[in-house]
């Protein structure tokens, strides 16, 4: 049976993963794009991204674009897998209602 994941279940992290998993696996999004999409502060987003990165669910790619530092974020295969398992677990709880 699919398991719930405590790291992902936190509301902001759940939305981060939902957004990243929705895009194609090869896509990575800019930090500011994600911040605007989620309507959270830089600090809040940064803290949650760190937790997800530590868990291995997202990859953070820091690089320079036109001499400016930019941060791009994407869901890892492991992150996609646990997210789908989390959704399946939620659905199974709902079915057992």
């Amino acid at each position, binding site marked *: *049976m699919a*398991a*719930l*994941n*405590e*790291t*992902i*279940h936190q*509301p902001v992290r*759940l*939305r981060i993963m*939902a*957004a990243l*998993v*929705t*895009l*194609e696996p*090869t*896509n*990575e*999004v*800019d930090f*500011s*794009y994600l911040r*605007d*999409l989620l309507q959270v502060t830089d600090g809040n987003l940064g803290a949650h991204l760190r937790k997800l990165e530590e*868990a*291995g*669910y997202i990859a953070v790619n820091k690089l320079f*674009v036109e001499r400016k530092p930019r941060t*791009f974020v994407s869901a890892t295969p492991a992150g996609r897998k*646990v997210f789908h398992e989390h*959704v399946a*677990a*939620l*659905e*199974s*709880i*709902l079915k*057992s*209602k």
Partner: protein
Amino acid sequence: MAKKSDPMNISPNEAEEALATIQAMRKKTLHSYANSGTYITLIVTGIVWLVGFLSTQFVPEISGYVWTVGSILGTILGTVLGFRMGKRVRSPSTAPTAKRIGLFWLLLVFYGIATIAVARPTDGKQATIFIVLFIMLGQLAMGLLFSFSSVWWALPITALALVGYFLLPSIFYLWMGVLGGGGMIVLALYIRSRW
């Protein structure tokens, strides 16, 4: 390592809320991603059309210059803004796709010029409706190939252009400027407000 909790700790109501949150976020992401290019295209094209068509209606003697300058500025602005917007989501497949899009529009311009040369429109309105139809055809193709949700707006603009051409020839340019150009700007602002 991530901790896993007991599924029994989450009630069906909480699970339902979490699933609704996920669904809403996925929808918002897709919407934002699909419409980012549409917003830029609409706002730039809308402004060029509004200024260009109004000048053709009211000051036709200088409208050629207005359209030339507007089209050049619009193309540069649209390309720069589109490029900046595109950089927010990176993908290895972006560059080849951008080249195909560029080539498609270049060929469409060539076909448009060839059609106008063959058809030899008798007045400015006929030439204008040809150009509008080709641009909208290109937009429909882009939408159908790359983002289905951005297809729909080209159809009402085409319908508006045809209504203006056949039913309101005396105010055709004013019609196209206010409803065509103005409509695009309003649509762009509406799309932006829903992000």
